[in-house]
Structure formats: C-alpha cells, structure tokens
C-alpha cells in the first residue's frame, strides 16, 4: 500500500498523551452516573414498553426514583428488590412498579445478599443477551460473507420506516453493504427513546427498537438474496446514548454512531452527561460487537478542513483512547474523518489524500469511517457528482473501511431512491477500476503529501499537550474543537447527571468491565 514515512516514536507519544487525557475523564466518569445509564440498566434487565402517553416504562421508573431522591444509589438494587417483592418476571415487575403496586425504594424486606444475588442474576441475563446478539451476527457472517472494505454505506431517511425499507433494499441491490437509517431531526435531544414502528419523522426516521427490528429483518432478507452480509447502522449519540445502544444490541444492529464529543459540540448536550453516557454505551457495544462510528467529520462542517485537520486527528486519538477504556477492540473502532476541503483550493485532492492516508497509518487496524464531501457540495448536482467521484477514488486508494457514499443531491434534499442509485454507480465504478491503485503508487518522499501529513501530526502534539494540561472538559469549553465553545455546566441534560452514592451499584457495568474485551 502507498505509504508515508512517519515517526513511530512521535506516534507513541501521541497515543500516550491521548491515553492520559482519557484517564482524567475516566476518573470523572467512574464517580458518576446518569438517568439514561440507569434507564439502560432497566432495558438490559428486560424492561420494555410505554404507557398510554407513549412514555417509556424505563423513564417512568427512573423518574420515580429521582422523585424519591434515591437515584444516587442506582436503580439496580431497587429493581432487584422489587423483583424479589413481586416474585414475577421483569416486565410485570416494572409494570407493577409503574402502577404503584410495588414500592420501589423499600429494600428493608430483603437481605443484602439476596438483593445482590438477584442483581447478579439480572446482570448475567443482560450480559447473556449481549452475548447472544454477538453470536447471532457471527453466525450470519459465516452464512453470508462480509463484503470487502471499503464497505458501501448508504443512508435512508424518509421518516417512514416502511418506506425506508423499500429504499434500503433498493440501495442494497445497487451495491450497498451498509444501511444507515438517519434519525428524525433532533431526536437526540429527546430524553427518552420513542416507541414502536414510526412513520412520521422529519428528514429522518425515529430510532426505536421496533424500527430497528423491522429494518434488520428486511436486511436479513436481502443478505440472503444478495449472498453478502448487509450491516445495519443507527445513531446513539444524544441524550439516550446508552439506551439506544441497548436497544440496538437487542435487535442485532452492527454499527452505531457513537462519539464521545459529538453530542456536546453539535447538539449542545452537557459534556458531563455525554462522557458518562458514552462510556456505558460503549461497554455495551464492545460486548455486543457493535462497531462504533465517531463523528470527527462534523468538525469540518463548522471549521476549516485544512486549518483544523489536527483537531480531527487529535479527536480520533482521544476517541480511540476512550474506546479502549470501554473495552472496544480495534475492529470495532470506526474512527471518523471526512473529505471536506474547499474544492477551490489548488491541490485540494492532494491534501485529502494526505489526511486520509495519515488516518489510515495512525490507526492501521480500525475500520475507518470516511465521510463524503457535504459542505462544498453544490446544488448543481452534476458538479457535486464529480466531487463524490474523486472522494470515492481517495477512499479506495487509501483503503478506508466504511465508505459513506456521497450523494449528488447533498446540498438539496435527503436522498431520493435514484440519487442513491446514482451515487452507487459512481462508487462501484471507481472501486472497480481503481481497485489496486493504492498498491500501485508511492507518495514521493518529502513530497507535498508526506509533508502535509507530517505537518498535521506536528500540530496535533502541542494540541494534545495543551488538552492534557487543562483537561478535556476545559478544552471543549474553550472552543478547541470545531470552533464551538460549550461551558462545562451548560447544555442539555446536566440535570440527569448525579454523583454515585457509596452504595451505588451497576452490576451490568461491573460484569462487562470484569469480563473484559471480547476478542475474535
């Protein structure tokens, strides 16, 4: 493969810095939890369903606990107690709690040991559910082989899950390997996970467990028909990061958009909340073998892609370090970056190659997520189609992992069925005719591309040093990423964050942590 000579010592230093930054954050994370982490525990224990106002049961139980000011101890212990009290299954117990027929915070009737045992039992079932989805996916991958990378990733976004299903199948028959259902606008700001099959999203379809199931089933059908495994993607970043991860795991999703900072920067979600939530969500992904996709590409929509290239690399390093803490193995780490340089810049394509190749070499084993041009797309669809074509070439040449197909109507509307087809025609064409271009060429030593990659690295180093010095939270507050400032205690969802009491328990987290990363 084409190669840029990089200094491995420098890379080691950068990785070490990132680890230290992540360590600091982890110290904070381990002392805190959030309402949505607690709701996730309930979901993993098996609590499902909504009331007549479509409020999820998990939300209602946690709200109860909050009202009783018992949240700091975590829901697990109380729910275990309720299980003992009801002597019934999880769902019935939850409903009884909701109906007020069981008092949630009354633990006095049971011994500490009994509760602990119940908790353990629940946690084991939770872990087993995560193991099951992992195995199911591995089975399917034996039956339908995984397509070769870069995987062709296409989005559907009609708002109606049934319409999405048609679109997804069409995309697969034109060559898509991965289907992402874009979430309805601003769902990430909802502090609950909507319920049931939905048909009324805005520029996206709600992420619900039922929708996940419908789409996964449709993709299983086409995997069979096409003889290759088709992966399903959804989004977890937002106020329900861990809960969506749980729902996704239960429905055998393959990939989740899951970034440690995206919600903070692009959704104005409180950073404490986000850091806490992402950790648990990633532990779940790790166990369920869900690939995470990070969102560094977004930085380049609000800040300049050349000037701020180093922020992308720095963020990738931090995301990697944080993901490692959550036991994610390299094969599950879809670090993000993007082809977003102003095409008016001379040699823009050389810059893009430098950036893409740098990412490839810094993270040689991860399935890099490569985002297409969006910001400089024109409403002249013919011109936009050309930009996507070179993006496709950059991707195959630098051997990216997950290739989000650029769409010629990017600057106009969420894709129509034929837009997706046209996008895939370009991807398929380029991937075929330039399949081994990366193997064929060398970048000139001391050339523009090699120098540019080195320059980015040289900018990353002091940047990470600075972040280490002031801490990641302060760095974000100072607007160091994406040119967006977010105060430590600003943004949405802080009220859902709490410090763990001494008797706090999250046995699912404990078990996942103790049993460690799953390899192979």
């Amino acid at each position: 493969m084409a190669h840029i000579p990089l200094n491995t010592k420098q890379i080691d230093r950068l990785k070490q810095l990132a680890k230290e930054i992540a360590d600091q954050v982890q110290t904070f994370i381990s002392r805190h939890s959030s309402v949505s982490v607690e709701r996730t525990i309930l979901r993993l224990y098996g609590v499902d369903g909504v009331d007549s106002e479509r409020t999820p049961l998990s939300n209602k139980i946690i709200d109860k606990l909050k009202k009783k000011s018992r949240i700091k101890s975590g829901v697990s212990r109380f729910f275990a107690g309720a299980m003992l009290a009801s002597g019934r299954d999880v769902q019935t117990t939850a409903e009884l709690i909701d109906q007020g027929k069981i008092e949630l915070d009354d633990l006095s009737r049971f011994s500490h040991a009994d509760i602990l045992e119940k908790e353990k039992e629940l946690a084991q079932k939770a872990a087993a559910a995560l193991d099951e989805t992992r195995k199911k996916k591995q089975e399917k991958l034996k039956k339908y082989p995984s397509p070769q990378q870069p995987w062709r990733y296409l989005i559907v976004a009609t708002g109606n899950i049934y319409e999405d299903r048609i679109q997804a199948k069409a995309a697969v028959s034109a060559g898509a390997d991965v289907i992402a259902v874009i979430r309805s606008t601003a769902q990430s700001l909802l502090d609950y996970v909507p319920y049931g099959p939905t048909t009324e999203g805005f520029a996206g379809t709600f992420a619900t467990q039922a929708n996940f199931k419908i789409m996964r089933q449709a993709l299983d059908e086409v995997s069979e028909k096409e003889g290759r495994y088709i992966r399903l993607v959804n989004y977890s970043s937002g106020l329900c990061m861990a809960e969506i991860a749980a729902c996704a795991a239960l429905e055998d999703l393959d990939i989740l958009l899951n970034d440690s900072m995206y919600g903070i920067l692009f959704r104005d979600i409180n950073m404490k909340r986000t850091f806490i939530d992402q950790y648990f969500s990633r532990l779940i992904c790790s166990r369920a073998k869900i690939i995470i996709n990070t969102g560094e590409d977004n930085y380049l929509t609000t800040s300049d892609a050349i000037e701020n290239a180093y922020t992308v690399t720095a963020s990738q390093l931090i995301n990697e370090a944080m993901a490692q803490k959550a036991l994610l193995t390299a094969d599950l780490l879809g670090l993000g970056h993007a082809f977003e340089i102003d095409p008016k810049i001379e040699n823009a394509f050389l810059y893009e190659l430098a950036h893409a190749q740098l990412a490839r070499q810094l993270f040689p084993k991860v399935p890099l997520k490569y985002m297409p041009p969006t910001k400089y797309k024109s409403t002249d669809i013919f011109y936009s189609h050309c930009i996507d074509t070179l993006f496709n070439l950059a991707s195959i040449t630098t051997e990216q992992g997950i290739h989000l197909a650029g769409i010629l109507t990017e600057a106009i509307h969420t894709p129509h069925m034929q837009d997706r087809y046209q996008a895939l025609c370009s991807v398929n064409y380029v991937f075929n005719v330039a399949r081994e271009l990366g193997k064929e060429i060398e970048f000139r030593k001391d050339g523009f591309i090699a120098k540019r990659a080195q320059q980015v690295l040289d900018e990353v180093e002091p940047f990470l040093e600075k972040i280490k010095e002031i801490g990641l939270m302060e760095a974000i507050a100072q607007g160091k990423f994406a040119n967006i400032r977010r105060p430590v205690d600003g943004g949405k969802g802080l009220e859902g964050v709490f410090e763990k009491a001494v008797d706090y328990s999250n046995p699912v987290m404990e078990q996942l942590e103790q049993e460690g990363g799953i390899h192979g």
Partner: protein
Amino acid sequence: MGEEMIKPYGDTLNDGMVQLSFTLPVENSSRAKKAAEIYVSRLNFEDVSVVHARKIADNFTYFVVYARAIPILDYSTVKAPEFKIKPMDFYEINEIIKIKLHRPLTVVGATIGSDAHTVGIDAIINMKGYDQDYGLERYPEINAYNMGAQVPCEELLEKAIDVEADVILISQTVTKKNAHIRNFSEFIKLLEEKNLKSRFLLIAGGPGISNDLALRLGYDAGFGPETRPSQVASFIVTKITEQKSAKRKYDGDPP
C-alpha cells in the same frame, strides 16, 4: 386488469418527484429564476424548486430544478409492442433452420446513407458478436453478408437480390435531425417502387430504434441498444418458419 395509477417516485409513493435541467436564453437574475419556476409549472409541475441557477453564457442561464409532476397515468392502459418471440440459443437456432427449412438462411446487412457507424451492425453480424453472444456469421446455417457503412440504398438492395437474401438488416446510428428516420424510410420507398416490399424480412436497428418505431416505419422489427445477435436470429428464424408454413408469396418480380 384494473387501474394502476402511477406517478414519479422520489422517496414516497406518488410524491411525483422529477429532476430537470435546462437552459433559458436570459441573463441570470431573480427574474430569471422566477421565469424558470413559472416555466416548469407550465409543464404541469407543482412545488417547483429552482435549486440552481448559473450564467453559462451571455444571455443564457442554466437551471437545475426539482418539482412534483401533477399528471397521473393509468399504467394498465399503456401498451408497447413487445416481441412475443421465444429467445433461443445458437444451437437451437441452427437446429430449427436445419429441420424446418432444409436450407441455410441468407442475411445481408449494412449501415446506409452517410452514416459511418459500423460497430452496431458488426456486433450483430460479425463472427465475434456482442456481449459473449456469437454474431450471425458464426451460425453454420446462416449465410451472412456485412456490407459495412455508408452504403447507398440501391447498392444494398442489389446485393440482397443478388445473393437471394431472406433478410435485410439495416443499421442507423446518427439520429441528429432525424437522419435515421429519413434513411430508413428511403429504403422502404425504394422497395415499394420496385414492388419488393414483401420479398424480404426487414429488420432495423441502432441506438435510437425501438420495435415500436421500426414497425411504424414499415419494418418487420426493430432492435435497440444492447441487442444480442441471438435475439435477432431468434426473431428471424421464428418469422421465416411462420412464413414458410403460411407459404411464401412474392408480390413483385417472379423468383
């Protein structure tokens, strides 16, 4: 069969979404964009979005537009003459000629008029064929003559009479100013003048040809893009064996 009402589809059934691009002979301006919007609405569209407008020459503006088409079409009323010929392969075709006709078929082909494109007719006639499908020359039971391009109608007809052809194949690629229609019609006129219209099976082909159009022009069939030689041969064999059973009649000069 009941009604089947259809409209274009963007991402929701019957949303009517269509993409258009065109150029208007006006300078780019808000008024030009408005003109594009009005113009497209006169084309029976609603929700017209002029998403792109750009000057591309003095007094010319190029537009990209998305809009929702209003008409609804009852698909059950749409008819198109499709071949009802069973597609056969190389071996079947030769077999049938042998068994049913007891003599080889003779085929003459050319690109007529000033059209110099031969690749299309070559694809059908020459050995090599098209898309892994042998050309007519390769069929042991077919005598195929390929006269190439720029062949005058008279010359083609003469050759066909000369070799006692069963079938005449004519190719046309240039469609600008309806050159193909003029040339195809000229050949038919020539045949009519000489009272030879029903002596040959007449087949037209080329990128601008559909079966529909060919029939309207007086040919027995028309083949468009991506035609494979065996499709043409299947048609020929089916037609000629039909004719044989219905006894061949000449309405012109005696054999």
